[in-house]
């Protein structure tokens, strides 16, 4: 405490230089906070993907369909607890330009396979009862001001009805949300009845896009996946089944590449920050050489002088670091709702704060080490000769 007035007085000596130095530190820790939120968000999302779910696609290509009859056949296979299926509708909204992810699904099995889907009381029953009912994600609902009870004419970019129209009338039964931390479904989709779609569609009947399978024993999901694919071997629609986790991992690999780039960027920013801070400290010590010599003359031990310089460096780094973290927290709060539509967990954790504190300590010490050592070694008589 007794050194604080001296430290603060020294800090304030060159306000402009302090502002620039602080600026570079603030930016570095701000970026760090954002990147950490993203990185840990991805990591948690991936770890929360259900291990007990498999995805069965057409072996040839994800855009090739499967026969709807496969649904019943997969259901009957040993090791399969639950199956549901989806079809890609290719929704186009209002203006004819806005794409909406509309999935045609089997409502009953869909709700069983995805327990993380959250609905208001009564919505579930109402949706099952209304063949033209659609569930709308809270994110997309908020974006376009969609409310339960709305009637939406949804165009398909892919299908036409038997009467030639490409518009399906959909009744918004309710808005769904996703349980916190579940990353398999987003809040941006429409879920519509397969039965109704299949009856009204002109060409492409009795086809589905893909199936999602819940296995009875997650420990044997590889085995179950192989069994499913074996069942359709040598048919005209062969399948390829993989775990959601595996798909998520592929996704994660791509994210990882982006992550590596971000880490490189933040690393470079930190490096620049350290150079700026180290330069500031070196200049500060150089221009204060006579003063440091005077302190030593007055009897300040060399170690004390060294600590004063280190403390100043740490103080600047901590000041900028905390400002950067605060800015990071504010930014995360501001853009969080938007980001959480894609990554369910996006927040500043204590781990980030602890890590940042360690970085402040490390960079503050590193930036101040050289000048501090110089101040420690400074020889009084020589330094005073040049005043």
């Amino acid at each position, binding site marked *: 405490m007794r050194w604080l007035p001296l430290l603060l007085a020294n800090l304030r*000596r060159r306000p402009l230089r302090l502002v620039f130095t602080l600026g570079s530190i603030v930016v570095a820790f701000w970026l760090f906070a954002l990147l950490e939120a993203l990185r840990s968000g991805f990591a948690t999302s991936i770890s929360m993907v259900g291990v007990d779910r498999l995805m069965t696609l057409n072996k040839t290509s994800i855009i090739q369909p499967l026969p709807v009859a496969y649904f019943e056949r997969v259901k009957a296979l040993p090791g399969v607890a639950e199956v549901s299926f989806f079809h890609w509708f290719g929704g186009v909204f209002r203006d004819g330009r806005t794409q909406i992810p509309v999935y045609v699904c089997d409502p009953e099995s869909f709700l069983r396979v995805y327990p993380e889907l959250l609905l208001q009381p009564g919505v579930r029953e109402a949706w099952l009862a209304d063949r033209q009912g659609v569930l709308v994600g809270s994110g997309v609902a908020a974006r376009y001001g969609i409310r339960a009870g709305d009637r939406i004419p949804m165009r398909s970019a892919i299908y036409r009805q038997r009467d030639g129209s490409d518009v399906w009338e959909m009744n918004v039964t309710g808005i769904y949300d996703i349980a916190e931390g579940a990353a398999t479904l987003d809040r941006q989709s429409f879920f519509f009845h397969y039965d109704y779609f299949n009856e009204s569609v002109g060409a492409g009947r009795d086809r589905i896009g893909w199936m999602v399978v819940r296995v009875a024993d997650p420990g044997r999901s590889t085995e179950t996946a192989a069994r499913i694919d074996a069942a359709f071997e040598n048919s005209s629609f062969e399948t390829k089944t993989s775990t959601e986790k595996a798909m998520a991992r592929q996704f994660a690999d791509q994210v990882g590449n982006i992550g590596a780039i971000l880490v490189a960027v933040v690393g470079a920013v930190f490096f620049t920050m350290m150079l700026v801070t180290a330069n500031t400290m070196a200049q500060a010590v150089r221009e204060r050489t*006579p003063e440091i010599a005077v302190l030593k*003359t*007055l009897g300040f031990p*060399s170690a004390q002088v060294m600590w004063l310089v280190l403390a100043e460096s740490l103080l600047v780094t901590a000041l900028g670091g905390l400002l950067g973290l605060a800015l990071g927290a504010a930014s995360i709060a501001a853009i969080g709702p938007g980001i959480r539509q894609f990554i369910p967990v996006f927040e500043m954790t204590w781990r980030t704060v602890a890590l940042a504190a360690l970085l402040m300590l490390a960079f503050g010490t590193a930036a101040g080490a050289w000048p501090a050592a110089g101040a420690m070694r400074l020889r009084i008589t020589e330094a005073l000769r040049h005043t």
Partner: protein
Amino acid sequence: MNDGGGAGVVELRGVCKSYSRGGETVHVLDELTLSIPRGDFVALMGPSGSGKTTLLNLIGGLDRPTGGSIEVEGLAIDRLSEAALARWRADHVGFVFQAYNLLPVLSAERNVELPLLLTRLPAPERLRRARTALALVGLADRARHRPRELSGGQEQRVGIARAIVTDPTLLLCDEPTGDLDRRSGDEVLDLLGALNREFGKTIVMVTHDPRAAQRARRTLHLDKGRLERETRA
């Protein structure tokens, strides 16, 4: 310690100081022997480069002799470790510089407080003592001023307050009036005289100004690293 036996507060015996600069050795002080009794006020004169500052630095424990011994109050300071020497300086010596050497970012009282930061005194007591020292040099009303808001003479008085705030035995002044006009210089010399007479401080003052030297009890003349002669006021 041996005050009664005529031994001075400062005792230099056969002190040599040389610098080697690129293979060449420069002898600055040559077999210098000197005794300064307690309560003395010594002026040190001599041409530029004669070794006055070097001598003062040796007495103040800022530098070490290459030969001979230096005792202050019976303590062989030339044999202290660097850390011990620093502590000794903090307790026993006050330095006054030609260029005042105040910290520009600190107020007068904070500058005077600096040496007390090394003590265990609590903050209020430190500031009380700093203000007392400032009052002693006649600057009680300038406690909150920065050095740049003071005149040269006032700055030097703050420098003196900083030098005496720990109540040291020895005051070492290197051309304390060198940067001052005559009036301010006289004020500083009055102050040093009073500190010597009334507070019993032992003072060694380097000066180029014979008028300043007259304030001292005696003047030592240094030339080419040797004490040439001594004059008494």
